[in-house]
């Protein structure tokens, strides 16, 4: 009898269980349940859980909201393209547009303060990859994803697009300041 021949016992589900296998199945099952509990438990006790708050949106609608924030809270501009740097007050709604091939505007946040970060893509799928913290979120066109973020370290961060979005994908990178 081997794995490439029919089993000798016609009723294979009555085939006895070896002690090695029985022990391992019990250990594995316990480990699987621990991992499941860990994932559920982190929603209760952990501080890093991705929000699922999502709204349908359109490029026009989202641009309007972003523009309102930019008009109100811009503190300076950066680079040749004069990208506004926006410092909205803690606790407020902040908007970030991902489009071919840039993020707009540049955000300036305060350490240990909480913000509602709204993300959407204007055209294709993009990626929000915050470096060097290494937080990665998918940005999908047509959907406004509201993520509550609390920066825990001051510094200059980069936002890298890590979803392929065409020929200039590699130039799609921006900054984010935490004071």
């Amino acid at each position, binding site marked *: *009898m081997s*794995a490439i021949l029919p089993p000798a016992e016609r009723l294979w589900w009555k*085939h006895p269980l070896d002690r090695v296998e029985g022990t391992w199945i019990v250990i594995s099952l316990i480990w699987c349940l621990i*991992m499941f509990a860990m994932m559920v438990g982190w929603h209760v006790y952990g501080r890093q859980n991705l929000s699922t708050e999502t709204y349908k949106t359109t490029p026009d609608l989202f641009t309007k909201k972003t523009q309102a924030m930019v008009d109100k809270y811009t503190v300076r501009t950066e680079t040749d393209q004069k990208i506004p740097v926006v410092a909205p007050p803690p606790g407020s709604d902040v908007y970030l547009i991902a489009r071919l091939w840039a993020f707009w505007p540049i955000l300036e946040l305060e350490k240990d303060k909480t913000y509602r970060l709204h993300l959407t893509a204007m055209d294709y799928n993009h990626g929000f990859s915050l470096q*060097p913290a290494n937080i*990665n979120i998918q940005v*999908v066109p047509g959907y406004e994803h509201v993520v509550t973020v609390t*920066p825990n370290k001051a510094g200059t961060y980069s936002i890298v697009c890590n979803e392929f979005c065409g*020929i200039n994908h590699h130039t799609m990178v921006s900054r984010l300041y935490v004071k």
Partner: protein
Amino acid sequence: MNATTYRTCPRSGLQFESQAEKLMMVNAVTAVVALLVGGILAIGVVLTRWPAVHWLAADTFYMVLTAHGIDMLIFWIIFFEVAVLYFCSSTLLRCRLATPKFAWLAFALMLIGAVTNNVAVFQGGSSVMMTSYVPMMAAPAFYLGLILFAVGALIACFVFFGTLVIARRDRTYQGSVPLVTFGAITAAIIAVFTITSGAIILIPTFLMSVGVIQSVDALVYRTIWWAFGHSSQQINVAAHISIWYAVAAIAFGAKPMSERVSRGAFLLYILFLQLASAHHLLADPGLSTSWKVVNTSYFMYFAVLASMIHGLTIPGAIEVAQRQKGFNNGLFEWLRKAPWDNPVFSGMFIALIGFGFLGGISGVMMGTEQLNMIIHNTVYVPGHFHATVVIGTTLSFMALTYFLIPVLFRREMINPGLAKWQPYLFGLSMYAFVLVMMGAGTLGVSRRHWDMAFSGSAMAYEWPGAAYLLMGLVGISGIAAIAGGAIYIYITVGSLLWGRRLDEGARSPKFTPIPRTAPTLAAQTYGSAGFAAPGTFALAMVFLVSFVLYYFINWKYLSQVWGLS
């Protein structure tokens, strides 16, 4: 009814029906051609991602990467799997293949589809990556090629199911089908689900590309596409695990430790494995937390449980067989005295260890809802799936090929000395490749990215030096692995062209049924502490400890990033 003949292979005792045999050959050979194309493209991918070389221009790189993904993940693997399905039905059950004309139609559709898709990609307007996320559009021929291929593959699955019916009706075997066939049935059931999902989403996308419908929702596309994209990798898991059981049986005469346990584990695959499409959607908006948690964990990690069971029972079966042969000293004599110079065995074993330790552990880590945020869309992801699909599936297929060259193709293998080394070169350089890739991913380096220096951008991010070093090592180990792949293709194609012809064995117009397997008396004279396979159990504990440590290290890492809620 059909005028067909059955050949009994004098080297293996397997019986090949002539139609099935021809179909296995053409599907396997086409698969190897796809592997060759994908392998050549891999040179372009790794030499561009190696920062010091940075070979191809951006547009060429994205085109080459698209073609590499599709040729390897879809065409190489599924053509080979069709050959495996026919082998596991017609050959292992010693019956004729059902509806050979439909099987040829399936092959023709798959071939036309594969060529159409490749032509579309190489024309340059379809560099959309394998995933082709809408609203980024490829040429209509891109989707049409995939749809034709999928229809062909679906027909091949039904030919497989039909063949099982014929074996049952003609009573070519008694009792239950062999375990390996059982595993192939698992693969085929998952394949039907997978291919149907692919059709559900690719048909509207094709209609969108020709202007018949206005738009396909980006998030709906991602959700359904991944029911195809990830589940197709689950076909591979079921298929290559079946091959591991087959190799254990062929190389050692090993019998499954317990038919009930192994088959039960395959049943868990059928029930839970496809839920894994959620793995790609954990960082997405719009899907609820409970949906993500339930799906990403295969309900409650039941498919992980199944894989951990297979990971024990296959080496366990080998250990039992070896101990019965007298290699009974200590914990590991059975393993030391294994035929390490037989590429059928060494390839399979390197695949098994790499799949478990590298692919399995990393897969569960990244499939954890919260932990996914620290690796989503980084090169950690291709690092993981090269461990599963290249080390796991591709290396297993290579190992099986070394068995099939004399048995199915009736040729003596050319250059057996080189073949002996091939699994080590290919497998171990892939081990290095995936480890450095996962390392770079842990540092955040993006996947599918032409230039980690962000040339032309005003706000370039400076990756840490270690990221550059690791991506350089990706290039070096990648080239070593490609060399290993080239040796496989040289040996396979060379043996088919120039290998000495071997005796094909007696042909008969009628099948010979499989004789009833004699029950074995289980008088256990080996092992220790009531454990039939103590060495395997020790290895399994090493695996578990690595798994637990790595899992919690990543939680520690996650706990230090920004608060998110």
